[in-house]
């Protein structure tokens, strides 16, 4: 059985027979692809059965996190979303596809445009007030015009996005992080709390959990 998380920038696949996840840039994906069960922004187009992204995130968190109280934040290319558990049960959730739009996508664009290596950038002392990737760009341009280095300006932008995501997820002491931005060390280090990195495949893990529980979540 083939599972997939069809994201805006990257698609993640998991064949349950092999159990090794694969990552493919969305623009390189064969458009005739069909999978058995999918989640993600583009999931409905390529699958027979679709699972809500928040549900997949929550089930992935349940499978990967051993503590009953946790906040799991997924920072993708297009949006950010979180799920908070207390006592093993869902307590709160959020999905910011509008104000938090395109944060991950913008960070990747900036990395290429300015030819940066995020593993070599230090976390700056101050950040920009960033609520959205697109609006945040103007802060970078203003800083560069006023003499700040491009790398320093982008680092402040990245820290601003991390702080925004931290506030959005209700400021947890420990934050479990999933999504493509897990691979960005500057972003991970910019959070003002302990961060537990779970990687890109948490939603796939959630799909797997749902499948293994018998094609449905427990019905009341």
């Amino acid at each position: 059985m083939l599972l997939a998380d069809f994201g805006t920038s990257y698609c993640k696949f998991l064949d349950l027979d092999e159990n090794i996840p694969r990552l493919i840039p969305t623009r390189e994906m064969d458009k005739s692809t069909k999978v058995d069960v999918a989640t993600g922004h583009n999931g409905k187009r390529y699958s027979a059965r679709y699972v809500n992204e928040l549900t997949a995130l929550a089930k992935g968190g349940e499978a990967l996190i051993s503590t009953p109280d946790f906040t799991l934040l997924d920072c993708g290319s297009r949006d950010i979303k979180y799920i908070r558990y207390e006592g093993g049960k869902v307590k709160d959730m959020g999905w910011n596809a509008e104000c938090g739009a395109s944060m991950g996508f913008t960070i990747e664009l900036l990395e290429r445009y300015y030819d940066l290596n995020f593993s070599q950038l230090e976390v700056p002392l101050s950040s920009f007030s960033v609520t959205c990737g697109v609006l945040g760009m103007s802060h970078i341009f203003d800083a560069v015009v006023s003499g700040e280095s491009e790398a320093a300006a982008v680092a402040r932008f990245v820290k601003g996005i991390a702080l925004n995501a931290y506030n959005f997820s209700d400021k947890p002491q420990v934050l479990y992080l999933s999504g493509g931005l897990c691979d960005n060390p500057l972003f991970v280090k910019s959070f003002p709390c302990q961060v537990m990195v779970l990687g890109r495949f948490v939603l796939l893990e959630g799909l797997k959990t749902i499948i293994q529980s018998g094609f449905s979540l427990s019905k009341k």
Partner: protein
Amino acid sequence: MAYSVGIIGIPPLEIIRKIEGCTVYDLDEPLVTNEIEAASPFLPSVYCAILRTAVVNSLSLKPNIIYIDVGPGKCDCAIHTATILESILPKTKVVRTINRDKKDFGTPLCTTQMPFLDKMTAITASVRSAKPHKRLPSCPPQAGFWGVPPRDFSFLALFPDTTHIYGWTRCMENKTPDNRALEEYFDPHVPTVFFAQSFCAKTALARHLANCHPRSLYLDCDVTAGSSAKAKIQAFLELSGVTDALG
């Protein structure tokens, strides 16, 4: 041309009895095709979408008379909207009411099994009648919806037929819009979505009650419910065991 009456909020029963037989527009609901931005010259864009809708409807339909409730059963924003309507519709008589009705009509629709969209529609339609409600069987609740009837009904389709309604919508069916105890009531055993319109004072109560409830989701929406709002409701119902993740 028929004498037309507009209502905003829930006018007292004595008014409803008086206007039965007239063409009655519930101006809180989207009735015309004009964009909601048509209200922006008169109300700020960042304002209750229900009252912005009422202004758009009023501008288009131009009722002969508008009864607008400005009491504690509606909201402060309605007080100012009444002033604005008087100013922009000089040929329409604007009558302010303060609904203090205390007679309980019951809430059979809120607790019966029925497609959720139809249930909400039936409750909002019942405002225009002073007749007693039909008796309906109650069902055990699988989920709860607390709040006001939303500006955008589209997300209601996500709720199962066995969803019970709480909050101001329940007060609405009971014909006691100023009934704090009824409005604040919820069942902690029922997973409940606490909804309020963005920029409405009821957002405070919705969020507070959601915090008091062990299995709740707080949600506010403005003019329309976006995909993320709908996804939150769907995930909440799935993760609460109310609906299946794979349909």
